[in-house]
């Protein structure tokens, strides 16, 4: 097992994710991130601990609440933010946005929008990678995903074929608005156990505890002993999506949010780092994020004439819309650089 990183490293990761999400909310408000985001504020400890336990060449499939995974795995904040703002400088050239990003340079192979379905993709990926080496695949999903049949099918396949995949459940208590106990008969860990997959439930607010549990699961997978599941109990302080900032949904009590704030992963980790060290880290992160926002907003918007790029690896002729029969690009005046999102979610 690799050595657990220093406390300051975890603190820096959590702080980076927290401030990144806060900057993103500003950019949602200003209309620069048109999709809104699914903030992971409150869940940063899971991202920090899980990703620190991976080798750079291990493969992670994220989900819709995935910004933290990218930053924790070392995705460049500027290029990642450029993706969220739909710019050509984005990690996916503006084709993914906040909901479906991937960044292979940081070991993140995608984020499926169909809740729970990334688990089977990660299982296939882990199977393929294991045939040529000892890389491990990780699938991250929330508590809502464990009621998807396809997720349970992937547990079955992974266990039958001893695939080196770690299933990470970030149980933040709610599938959008549905409380986990109202959506999950039995338990998350019990589902994995039913398929012969070792499973544990672990405190997700303490990154060092997360790291230890994840490192054991990764070791097991790399050693050829097959899949495991780790359920991290955590909480999101924000809504499911930034649309909740204008649409007040009364599915949880303020007192509950306040109780979880007492176990804020940022505070838990901050207590382990001397104040002067923290202050230096905080200052550096603000510089990094200032530069990231600048990079994102200065990055050009995509040219509408390139809209069919990357649709296929072996290209085919596309008809319709911009792609007129005779190939004359009919780009409407004003499309492109002047384009603004028509609405804001925050």
């Amino acid at each position, binding site marked *: 097992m690799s050595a657990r990183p220093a406390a300051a490293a975890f603190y820096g990761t959590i702080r980076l994710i927290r401030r990144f999400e806060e900057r993103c909310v500003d950019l949602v408000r200003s209309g620069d991130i048109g999709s809104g985001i699914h903030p992971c504020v409150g869940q940063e400890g899971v991202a920090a601990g899980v990703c620190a336990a991976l080798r750079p060449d291990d*493969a992670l*499939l994220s989900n819709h609440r995935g910004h933290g995974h990218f930053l924790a795995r070392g995705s460049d904040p500027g290029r990642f933010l450029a993706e969220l703002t739909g710019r050509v400088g*984005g*990690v*996916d*050239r*503006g*084709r*993914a946005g906040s909901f*479906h*990003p*991937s*960044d*292979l340079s940081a070991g993140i*192979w*995608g984020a*499926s*929008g*169909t809740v729970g*379905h990334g*688990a*089977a*993709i*990660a*299982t*296939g*990926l*882990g*199977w*393929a*990678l294991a*045939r*040529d080496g000892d890389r491990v*695949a990780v699938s991250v999903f929330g508590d809502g995903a464990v009621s998807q*049949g*396809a997720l349970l*099918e*992937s547990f*079955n*396949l992974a266990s*039958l*074929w001893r695939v080196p995949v770690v299933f990470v459940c970030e149980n933040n208590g709610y599938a959008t608005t549905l409380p986990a106990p109202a959506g999950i008969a039995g338990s998350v860990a019990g589902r994995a156990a039913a398929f012969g997959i070792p499973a544990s439930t672990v405190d997700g607010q303490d990154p060092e505890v997360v790291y230890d549990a994840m490192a054991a699961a990764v070791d097991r997978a790399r050693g050829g002993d097959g899949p495991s599941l780790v359920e991290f109990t955590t909480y999101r302080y924000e809504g499911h999506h930034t649309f909740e900032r204008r649409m007040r949904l009364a599915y949880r009590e303020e007192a509950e949010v306040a109780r979880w704030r007492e176990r804020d992963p940022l505070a838990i980790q901050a207590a382990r780092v001397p104040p002067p060290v923290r202050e230096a880290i905080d200052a550096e992160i603000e510089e990094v994020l200032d530069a990231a926002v600048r990079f994102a907003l200065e990055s050009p918007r995509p040219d509408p004439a390139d809209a069919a*790029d*990357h*649709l*296929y*690896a*072996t290209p*085919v*002729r596309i*008809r319709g819309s911009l792609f007129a*029969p005779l190939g004359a690009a009919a780009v409407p005046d004003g499309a492109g650089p002047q384009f603004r999102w028509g609405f804001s979610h925050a």
Partner: protein
Amino acid sequence: MPKLSYAKALNRALTDEMERDPDVFVLGEDIRFALNNVTTGLLDRFPDRVLETPLSEQGFTNFATGAAMGGKRPVVEYQIPFLLLLVLEQIANQANKFRLMSGGQVKVPVTYLLPGTGWRPGWGAQHSDQPYGVFAHLGVKTVIPATPTDAYGLFLSAIRDDDPVVVFCPMPALALREDVSYVDLAPIPLGVGRVCRPGDDVTVLAVGHLVHDAVAVADELAGEVSVEVFDPRSLHPFDWAGLAASVERTGRLVVFDDGNRFCGVGAEVLATAAEEMRLAAAPKRVTRPDAAVVVGCAPELDLAVQPSRAQLVAAIQAVVKS
């Protein structure tokens, strides 16, 4: 010259490609017993590249996506056409979009093989679909070989293609045999159609097994009208230039399509012809009806709703007269 059956052509293509490329593997249900004759002999030759799956179509379809992203070339076999509707999301929304969503960082070379689509006498409403139009509509590469030679060549190209490709093999074509010299078998590029029978008066665009019916009808009408039969072979990409060249000469068009009528392949071909080609007469299509494609398990009922040679004859005569 040896006789090559359609089913044997599929088996030969897969065997040849697994021999040539160690990243190709096959997965599906009961494939170790080769119920569809596609995987015959593969388990013995490639024991670790034949993955027998449980009944988890959504799970193993997504599994194939992940394996393809990880550098492999999975071929997924489905026994029954409706299973494609069960995994529509996994093919159209996952496999077919990861290339785009990653901005070109990953490729997803999966082949989905349907060795038996369309009507099976007596199998009822849930085993007789012909959903190729759905996949072409959603932008998934879709091929439908009519002959053993094309089955070999298109299946091979599908496996080598760097994107997801669905290969529809129509049930009535599986038993076809063709005199073939094995050395002539070669990959056939996607998006290249074929004039199966030249003619001057009208172009019949026929899909899948209906190509053979169209050729028979053309022969039958030979004294009366000169019919050209065009087989697009793949539906997406589609050989629009090939079709346009044929219609340019004949000026008349009939589509013979085993899919449903509404928003079907026939509808798309007629619309494109009306927009972009010079037609001397209004075109026609012979298709399955709008709604349920098979109405029961009695052949009289089922056949009443399938496109027939008699309907094609009537459509050709109407188009030629107008």
